[in-house]
């Protein structure tokens, strides 16, 4: 029986020729990640277990990104725990303020993840690296701790769903519209426990940032991981970053999928997920007045995302009464945006540009919503209270839609602003 791409990566890391959906395996990990929220809980467990050292000081990554630069004394204490631990255990990939970026943009950028790798991270959006042809999945702090101690983790081999992407997306359609459309189609538990494997001729129209966005939100459909096949786009991105051996796996022609969906990319329209679940995806929006726009996060803080926003905002002004907050995901992206003149365009339009942080996405800081306020956000979750007050509302959208909405002060399609 054939294997899916995800199953092949798991089999290789478990030292097995073949694995089947549902099988329990123990596998060797290439990388183990935590951040300033999940790290301290894992460190507490590490100490409780009486562990002395991490399995490989090159393969444990700690990124201070959620509440850093620290928003208050308590979060400063959490970062301090991680900082001392990293120093004590000689963890080489400890990313503090100045070196840090939003973890799921930072790790690929630093060449820490490559095709064929197996990665766990104590952050649910760890599934992002599937864009590079890696198997990566989010875990809790205890599993992260066990991985950090042993370099191994047990997995239940996932069954899979296949998404065949066909055709070329229209102007102003990007990875975000594709994944919101898919989550709308299958629901927030539509891929529960399973892999989401992407295939089809439409893939060639998706740049690496589109793929990061799509895999990033696989968890929003309940999936264990999302994954793209390796092609020229992947190889070009990994070139000069990833120094490990690129291991290209492809699904067998007779791989088993629970379900196969065909998605015609050319038919997609700008898509927005309404409150309070990512599955509430709509293409007709009505008149939704807004108070704030956030462009950034591990989902849409990449350079392509900032270019989309700048395309709309160039020479235009943010509407009165709207606060626009733009957050490049890493310092490298920030610098690139600066060189390209994007930051000047943002500030000229009346937006504010922040240092990299997860901040507003999870209601931490840097853009908290008051009661009843509405935000169009390029982030990944629109749950009740996610960005602030329980009566505030989040509309998940692409950078194009977010920027267009910032200009008009209401939920707006990019074409309307650009025409």
């Amino acid at each position, binding site marked *: 029986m054939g294997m899916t791409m995800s199953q092949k990566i798991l089999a290789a890391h478990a030292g097995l020729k073949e694995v089947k959906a549902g099988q329990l395996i123990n596998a060797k990990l290439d990388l183990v990640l935590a951040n300033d929220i999940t790290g301290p809980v894992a460190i507490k467990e590490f100490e409780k277990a009486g562990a002395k050292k991490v399995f490989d000081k090159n393969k444990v990554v700690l990124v201070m990104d959620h509440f850093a630069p620290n928003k*208050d004394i308590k979060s400063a204490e959490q970062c301090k725990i991680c900082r001392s631990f990293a120093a004590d255990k000689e963890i080489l990939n400890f990313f503090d303020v100045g070196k840090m970026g939003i973890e799921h943009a930072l790790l690929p950028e630093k060449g820490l993840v490559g095709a064929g790798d197996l990665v766990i991270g104590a952050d649910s959006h760890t599934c992002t690296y599937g864009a590079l042809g890696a198997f990566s999945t989010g875990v809790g702090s205890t599993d992260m701790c066990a991985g950090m101690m042993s370099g191994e983790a047990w997995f239940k081999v996932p069954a899979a769903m296949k998404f065949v992407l066909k055709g070329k997306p229209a102007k102003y359609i990007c990875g975000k519209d594709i994944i919101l459309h898919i989550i709308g189609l299958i629901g927030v538990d539509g891929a529960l426990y399973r892999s989401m494997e992407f295939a089809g001729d439409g893939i060639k129209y998706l740049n690496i940032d589109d793929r990061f966005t799509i895999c990033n939100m696989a968890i929003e459909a309940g999936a264990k991981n999302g994954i793209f096949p390796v092609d020229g786009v992947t190889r070009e991105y990994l070139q000069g970053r990833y120094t490990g051996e690129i291991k290209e796996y492809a699904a067998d022609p007779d791989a088993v999928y629970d379900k196969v969906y065909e998605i015609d990319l050319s038919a997609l329209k700008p898509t927005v997920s309404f409150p309070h679940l990512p599955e509430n995806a709509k293409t007709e929006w009505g008149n939704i007045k807004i108070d704030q726009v956030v462009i950034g996060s591990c989902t849409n803080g990449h350079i392509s995302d900032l270019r989309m926003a700048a395309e709309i905002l160039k020479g235009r002004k943010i509407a009165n009464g709207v606060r626009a907050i733009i957050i490049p995901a890493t310092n490298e992206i920030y610098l690139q945006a600066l060189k390209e003149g994007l930051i000047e365009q943002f500030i000229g339009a009346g937006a504010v540009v922040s240092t990299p942080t997860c901040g507003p996405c999870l209601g931490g800081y840097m853009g908290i919503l008051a009661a009843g306020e509405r935000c169009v956000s390029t982030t990944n979750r629109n749950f009740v209270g996610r960005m602030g007050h329980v009566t505030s509302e989040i509309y998940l959208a692409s950078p194009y839609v977010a920027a267009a909405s910032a200009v008009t002060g209401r939920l707006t399609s990019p074409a309307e602003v650009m025409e």
Partner: protein
Amino acid sequence: MKVKGKVFKYGNDVDTDVIIPARYLNTSSEKELAEHCMEDIDESFVNEVEAGDIIVAGDNFGCGSSREHAPIAIKASGVSLVIAKSFARIFYRNSINIGLPILECPEAVGAIEKGDVVSCDLGSGTVTDETTGKSFTAEPFPPFIQQIIEDGGLIAHLAKVKK
């Protein structure tokens, strides 16, 4: 292991952001997390919950973030068991790892009402609504998972096994 308590009932897709809002994730203190458990969907929970109480919910309980703080907050608030139609993947694993008993039992979820007193034998998976007298059977965890939960989580379990 047997548990018994009154029921707090919720719907589908209870996410980890409402179980423990991220604004409280600047601490890993179990006590502080418990003080804000369920706050964004049920303000009265923290005041009404008593040791042994049981949460009953629909599909995809614990969806969203990987924060282990979510099952930790529930456990530290005194809850002895979460029964749901289904659990989100990471929450499911986290609950076992920190020693919070969970059970998937769609029939029980359909029949049990808020405020009912429910007892459960985790070993056999038998759920009894003592208010209505109805009984349900869930698939119990295999003994080694039950042992992890009983020992208070994976790390505590491993420490005990090593001794």
